[in-house]
């Protein structure tokens, strides 16, 4: 009988890997000196490519020259002050007595080296920073010259990619090895797809943090992340689902929310052959849709109904930026003016019902829900929709081809606290991202003027005027200002959600009984 040995061997061969001990994951959520954070993105500390939204843990390893406070205002980071010394030049005074995690001192030469490496290594950094040259004038002074007058440079220097690295972060070829920074925690360990571990850096220039260790656990599934919090596997769950936010509010767990810079909006195709090519139709839609119902229906109330492109929650939003009111009667009048009439509850023109082709992408969890709610709301108002979902690049292909009426997107237009980034790259006539067939010379001129201006009355006026044109032309349909959320275990104190969504600050967080 030859079967049994063969079967046994086969069974062993299969069973061995399954039962082999796996690398242990420290059960540290119970320990008061360690904070365990569950994140939706994987942090990738060991390479620089996919940097931008992965910055959250490096915000504790690295410092940027300038930082954003909780109101999205610029505050000193490694630069204590900065001044625009000419249309194209900025001078930064650097913080003294700062050491990198490897013990080397931080000075202007180190900052120059780091920024130059970043521009060399990241294909998109040069365009973002618009930098012509960087000079270390003296050990505490850094001078940066831009390619053109560029007032938003200090804002761009808060961007995740501009964190300052020590020379030892790079190898002899200038390639990135690992993050060595000046932040309160230093990088210790990274286990792919599982976690990143950082440890307290005792020579940190600011106040010493309470925790000896922070572990970032990567739990991509939104439900799973919150369940891990509830079962005590993690201390903080970043971005819990709206339904869980509502549920956890009723429990001992703490829910933190912060209105953010992010916006969900519909981007209209304004080409003449589309129904949305008629400005009256766009304005009618803008007035017709009750955003609060979208926030309720799709996001369980976690979000702010958006009636303007930039969230009014922030100081830097220009004075006098317009808001569109909810006005169903006005909308009906506009549609009638555009040649539509309401027959049996549906808007019809020349016997054809008003039908909008809406595109979106399903890779962002809340996108299908928002699109779904919008479509249901439009149906209620007598406007038909045909909705298609893709991956983001798939959707962009149809958008580029002009085969759509509305594409629903999410963007963080003021990630760095300045209107320029988004208006310039998305809505000006020659913007690489303008697939809306929209062109307005006056708007272009205002945006180009705003780039060169310092904050003040003229700045406010210029941007307010540009935003007024956007509102009058109704070329976007703002839907929801995102509210970033986090849920923490009952014993976690002092944690705040940053409105940019990218920075986590654990310096003043504590755990355990008060």
């Amino acid at each position: 009988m030859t079967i049994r040995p063969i079967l046994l061997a086969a069974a062993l061969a299969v069973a061995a890997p399954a039962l082999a001990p796996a690398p242990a994951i420290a059960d540290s959520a119970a320990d008061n000196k360690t904070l365990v954070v569950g994140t939706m993105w994987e942090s990738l500390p060991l390479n620089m490519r996919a940097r931008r939204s992965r910055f959250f843990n490096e915000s504790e390893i690295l410092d940027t020259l300038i930082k954003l406070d909780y109101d999205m205002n610029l505050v000193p980071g490694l630069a204590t002050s900065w001044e625009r010394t000419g249309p194209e030049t900025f001078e930064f005074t650097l913080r003294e007595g700062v050491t990198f995690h490897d013990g080397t001192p931080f000075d202007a030469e180190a900052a120059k080296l780091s920024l130059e490496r970043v521009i060399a290594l990241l294909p998109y950094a040069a365009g973002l920073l618009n930098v012509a040259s960087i000079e270390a004038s003296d050990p505490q002074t850094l001078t940066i010259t831009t390619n053109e007058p560029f007032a938003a440079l200090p804002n761009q220097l808060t961007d995740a990619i501009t964190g300052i690295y020590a020379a030892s972060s790079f190898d002899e070829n200038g390639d990135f090895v690992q993050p060595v920074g000046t932040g309160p925690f230093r990088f210790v360990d990274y286990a792919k797809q599982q976690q990143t571990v950082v440890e307290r850096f005792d020579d940190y220039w600011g106040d010493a943090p309470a925790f000896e260790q922070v572990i970032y656990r990567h739990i991509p599934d939104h439900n799973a992340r919150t369940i891990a919090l509830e079962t005590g596997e993690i201390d903080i769950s970043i971005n819990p689902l709206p339904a869980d936010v509502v549920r956890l509010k009723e429990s001992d767990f703490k829910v933190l929310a912060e209105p953010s810079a992010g916006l969900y909006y519909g981007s209209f195709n304004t080409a003449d052959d589309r129904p949305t090519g008629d400005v009256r139709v766009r304005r009618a839609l803008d007035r017709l849709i009750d955003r609060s119902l979208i926030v309720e229906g799709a996001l369980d109330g976690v979000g702010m109904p958006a009636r303007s492109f930039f969230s009014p929650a922030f100081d830097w939003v220009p004075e006098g930026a317009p808001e569109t009111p909810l006005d169903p009667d006005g909308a009906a009048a506009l549609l009638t003016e555009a040649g539509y009439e309401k027959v049996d509850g549906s808007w019809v023109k020349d016997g054809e019902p008003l039908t909008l082709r809406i595109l979106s992408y399903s890779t962002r969890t809340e996108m299908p829900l928002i699109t779904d709610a919008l479509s249901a709301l439009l149906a209620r108002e007598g406007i038909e929709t045909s909705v298609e979902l893709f991956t983001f690049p798939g959707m962009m292909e149809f958008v580029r081809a002009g085969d759509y009426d509305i594409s629903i997107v999410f963007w963080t237009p003021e990630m760095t606290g300045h209107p320029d980034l988004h208006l310039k790259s998305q809505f000006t006539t020659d913007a690489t991202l303008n697939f809306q067939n929209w062109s307005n010379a006056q708007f272009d001129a205002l945006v180009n003027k705003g780039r060169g201006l310092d904050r003040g009355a003229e700045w406010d006026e210029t941007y307010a005027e540009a935003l007024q044109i956007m509102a009058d032309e109704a070329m976007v349909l703002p839907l929801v200002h995102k509210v970033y959320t986090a849920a923490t275990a009952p014993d976690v104190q002092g944690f705040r959600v940053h409105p940019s969504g990218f920075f986590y600050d654990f310096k003043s967080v504590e755990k355990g009984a008060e």
Partner: protein
Amino acid sequence: MLRDLSVRCLFGCLTLLGLSIFGFALLAMLPGDFAEVVLINQMDGELPSAETLAKFKADEGFDEPLPVQYFAWLAATLRGNLGVSFTTGDPVTAELGLRMVATFRLVGLAFCLTVLMGGALGVIAALNRGSLLDRLVTVVAISGMSVPNFWQSLLFVLLFALVLGWAPSSGYGGFSHVILPATVIATASMGLTARFVRASLIEALSAPHVRTALAKGLSPRATLFSHALPAALPGILTLLGLQAARMFDGAIVVETIFAWPGLGRLFVDSILNRDYPVLQATILVVGATYILINLAVDCAAAALDPRMRRAV
């Protein structure tokens, strides 16, 4: 037999080649400029400028014609260089290492459960054919085949992780982490295996030599193990080989829900992110594994069944 075996290996390699062309064609058919998509992904959704794009294309070889790109990839792969992930910037081999171990642990345990539970249920049902027990096994087996794995995963997490607290809700780790997802994956194939084992044994039990053994007074149990099972085994092994492919299907959804860092999730992510080097490597690894499993199963079946020796 050796010659047949080498022919089959050759076909296996051809299948792999076909798969790699499939993977490449798939990505070539993707709407949108390939290089741009990759850059957008690295920039978290922002569109790169034209100069940035041109530089990136030149640096990464995207401005070559598609066949040139394919053969460049093939040549590098044959030298063991799978390239660098577009999403993470890490070498593909590093991406695959952990994922392979994770998936093989998960699917391996699921496979053990399938063999043990499915086999046992099938034998019990066959031995007690027509009885209440047989019907019960049938109901359990067919129900198992009918439960959507994503739905079962959701219910399992609720029940076993949250309500009962018996296992962690998600993540990579030891036996307690792997048991829930493995059970979910095994449920469907357990049912199918039980049904198949039962039917095969019943078929084998009706064979003349088995009936003779029974007539000569051999106990039903002894007859089963010494006569019926050996006859039914080749077919069962073939089925189990095919089940392995279905298990990877299961892993795709289950790994996502349980945050298990395996090949299934990598596969989904690499499609969504158009991480072409990773997708190609994943397809090759999964394809090669299943071709090998099926080859091994056919060999084992041939070794166990003299009638099939020539067919292999």
